[in-house]
């Protein structure tokens, strides 16, 4: 029943911005559905194969901002072949043909060709923002098209993409009339850039707030850029190697001091540790510091730097900080909410790696900690139990012990109790990644306590199907489950196939599920795409149902089988 005219409802809906809430609103009644769909401007699609561009366009004619995700998460770790899918071109093509006035496109793990970038740049007059995260398939030529044609571009944000760098000229393609840039991030590009063009671009972009450079930008250019853009809020330094007694360094110190608005600092793709003191003046204001690409920075220099950063909320660091360094973090960064510790030497013995000690120190010193990604040499149950007590507010808890089945080194027990303590204490936990030696027991705990859990990553764990069953039965809000190298088989997979329709996706690789099991899921659930990825040619010659499946990826969809799968992907 509508007591209000549509416009009023629409106005009310304007205040509802979260995707989940807007989705809920649209389900209330037909008229709300209608009003909501015409007024919706931002759409998030977590799996590009769950819906088609045509249906998207039909439902949301007012679309301005689209977020799309393609490949499954494990593609980040090379478990998914490059041409598996996730092509953005059909989306851009369909949108271009329609009347949609696209202004923002955010893509993650998708294949983006130069063609699609060119089409994008020419099809939407008001296009403002392009964000590409972990994408591939394009070159700097595609970027040149964006630069040249998007007259009102505000944001070009490239995060960790695989870009074929043809060097140089794309930056020069921004016309002189382009003065609207707010955010420019090209840190992931490996090639040279036209430094003069970069300086001119920054000079004529008074609204520039975020600038992340690649390693080809040398120090003296950095200094000039900072002089022209003292209003920067977010800075990514490319190369930071220089002589501390040089004129260039002195100029840099002055330039940095003028940048009183910088709250976020990253990059340091090459770094000379003895020159970090130039940064000290701005450290006191930093809320985000990312040193995870700077293995040259460790020991006392690093600790001294951290000691200046009293307001840090997010810290991304390499494990060469060591437990001692994490102790310094614990003493200094009382506002810390997110900590990510990456391995500096993932395949070889790390002298300066971190252990459970560092984590315990941080948990004790930083009570606001709610998000963790921690690569370490070892972990103990006692430490995890302590961390759970100290920090009950974890939303994201991702622990990666480099030896994937290492037990508690003190007691030689599996880490079931430790992780159990985490899920029991952290009632708001939404994302969990497990590692170390783990039995079915930990999954019993997860099923019992992790009521808000949305994403779970499991590797080399469990003893039997029971592990998977505990999770599927217990975690009502589970959306994404990704499993590798666990002894889960058909019995677990087939226990409750309806559950998968409530989830975005399930990934299982190197487990015990068989072709027959996967076929059974596909048969019972036509609303799921069940994909088998097998590059070994075994599927060509041996279609025995009892055969174990190498990689299975299943996801709910409204549009049936996709047509763009390569030959080594079988959709059952």
């Amino acid at each position, binding site marked *: 029943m509508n007591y209000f005219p549509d416009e009023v409802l629409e106005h009310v809906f304007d205040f509802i911005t979260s995707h989940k809430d807007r989705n809920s609103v649209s389900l209330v009644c037909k008229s709300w559905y209608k009003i909501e769909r015409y007024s919706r401007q931002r759409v998030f699609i977590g799996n590009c194969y769950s819906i088609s561009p045509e249906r998207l366009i039909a439902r949301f004619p007012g679309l301005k901002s689209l977020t799309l995700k393609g490949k499954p998460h*494990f593609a980040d770790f090379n478990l998914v072949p490059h041409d598996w899918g996730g092509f953005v071109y059909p989306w851009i093509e369909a949108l271009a043909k329609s009347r949609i006035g696209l202004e923002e496109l955010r893509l993650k793990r998708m294949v983006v060709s130069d063609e699609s970038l060119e089409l994008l740049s020419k099809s939407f007059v008001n296009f403002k923002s392009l964000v590409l995260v972990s994408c591939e398939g394009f070159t700097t030529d595609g970027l040149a098209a964006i630069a040249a044609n998007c007259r009102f571009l505000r944001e070009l944000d490239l995060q960790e993409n695989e870009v074929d760098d043809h060097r140089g000229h794309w930056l020069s393609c921004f016309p002189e009339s382009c003065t609207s840039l707010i955010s420019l991030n090209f840190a992931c590009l490996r090639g040279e850039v036209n430094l003069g063009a970069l300086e001119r671009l920054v000079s004529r972009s008074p609204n520039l707030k975020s600038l992340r450079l690649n390693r080809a930008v040398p120090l003296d250019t950095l200094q000039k850029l900072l002089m022209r853009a003292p209003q920067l809020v977010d800075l990514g330094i490319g190369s930071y190697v220089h002589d501390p007694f040089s004129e260039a360094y002195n100029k840099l110190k002055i330039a940095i001091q003028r940048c009183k608005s910088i709250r976020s600092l990253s990059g340091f793709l090459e770094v*000379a540790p003895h020159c970090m003191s130039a940064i000290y003046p701005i450290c006191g204001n930093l809320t985000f510091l990312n040193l995870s690409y700077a293995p040259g920075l460790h020991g006392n220099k690093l600790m001294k730097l951290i000691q200046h950063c009293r307001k840090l909320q997010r810290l991304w660091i390499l494990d060469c900080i060591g437990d001692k360094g994490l102790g310094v973090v614990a003493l200094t960064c009382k506002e810390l909410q997110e900590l990510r510790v990456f391995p500096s030497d993932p395949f070889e013995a790390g002298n300066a790696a971190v252990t459970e000690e560092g984590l315990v120190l941080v948990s004790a010193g930083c009570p606001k900690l709610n998000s963790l990604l921690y*690569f370490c040499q070892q972990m103990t149950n006692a430490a995890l139990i302590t961390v759970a007590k100290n920090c009950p507010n974890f939303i994201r808890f991702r622990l*990666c012990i*480099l030896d994937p089945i*290492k037990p508690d080194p003190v007691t030689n027990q599996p880490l079931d109790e430790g992780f159990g303590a985490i899920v029991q204490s952290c009632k708001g936990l939404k994302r969990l990644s497990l590692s170390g*030696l783990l039995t079915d027991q930990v999954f019993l705990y997860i099923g019992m306590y992790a009521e808000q859990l949305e994403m779970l990553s499991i590797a080399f764990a469990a*003893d039997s199907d029971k592990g998977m069953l505990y999770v599927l039965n217990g975690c009502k809000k589970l959306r994404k489950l990704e499993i590798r190298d666990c002894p889960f088989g058909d019995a677990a997979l087939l226990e409750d196939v309806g559950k998968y329709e409530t989830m975005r996706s399930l990934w299982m690789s190197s487990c015990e599920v068989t072709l027959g099991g996967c076929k059974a899921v596909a048969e019972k659930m036509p609303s799921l795409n069940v994909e088998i990825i097998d590059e070994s040619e075994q599927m060509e010659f041996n279609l025995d149902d009892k055969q*174990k499946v190498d990689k299975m990826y299943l996801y709910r969809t409204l549009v049936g089988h996709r047509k763009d799968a390569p030959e080594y992907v079988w959709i059952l």
Partner: protein
Amino acid sequence: MESGCSKKLLDLIPQEKKWGFIENQNGISHGSSEEKKLELKLGPPGEEDEPLVSFGYFSSMKSNAKQAHNKFPPAQEDHRGGAVLTASWAKNHHHQPKPPNCSQKRTAPGPVVGWPPIRSFRKNLATTSKLASESPPSLPHKVAIERKPAAPETRGKGLFVKINMDGFPIGRKVDLKSYDSYEKLSTAVDELFRGLLAAQRDPSADGPKQEEEKVITGVLDGNGEYTLVYEDNEGDRMLVGDVPWHMFVSAVKRLRVLKSSELSVINLGSSKKGKMVQN
């Protein structure tokens, strides 16, 4: 030979859970004798009696052993106890993880596909920093150049990739198109570096060089002093010989000859390679 092989393998994988060789480094929980381990592996299949709640490490691991056996019936045909692992590898088409390192080395496990779970961007950081510390400070940008992925050149029909050997700053190039198998590549590697090694060992040797030169063997099977690894098109470091030759050629970007002692899972490589590589 079999039992000797298996004993060596088992010593190196004390915590290998998946295949039921559970044996802790401190020797607690179930038996540490070789026979017991073999028994666990070759025990009868089909026992479902796992405790719901593990009272202790032992009982859950025991169930692992049974479980593990269920998974790999082909292992029964192969009478090499220690090679249960090998058999499962050879027969399973999917990548099984190489069990983690032996207790002697405090290292992460060797090149398991996709482990540790970090993006390619982050994988070569350590190498880059080593290069940075080795290269003279007056050339900081040398690091930047090194950082680019080493793409193989194709001069005409050849496919040249760089190959470096541990201990020698200057590398060589090999034309992969001129070999059609791993064996031929291995021979070529030997020929390339043998002379260098000899010179390094005894630069002041007066005697005939022929006697001083030691043939470099075993680069593919992990038995030798050196092991051949490569960097693929995703920046990952892999043991040479894992995949069919033509796949290797299409993926390889550069080669390295590492001292086997530096490599985390050398002996594992040996048992695997015996079965896998027949290109």
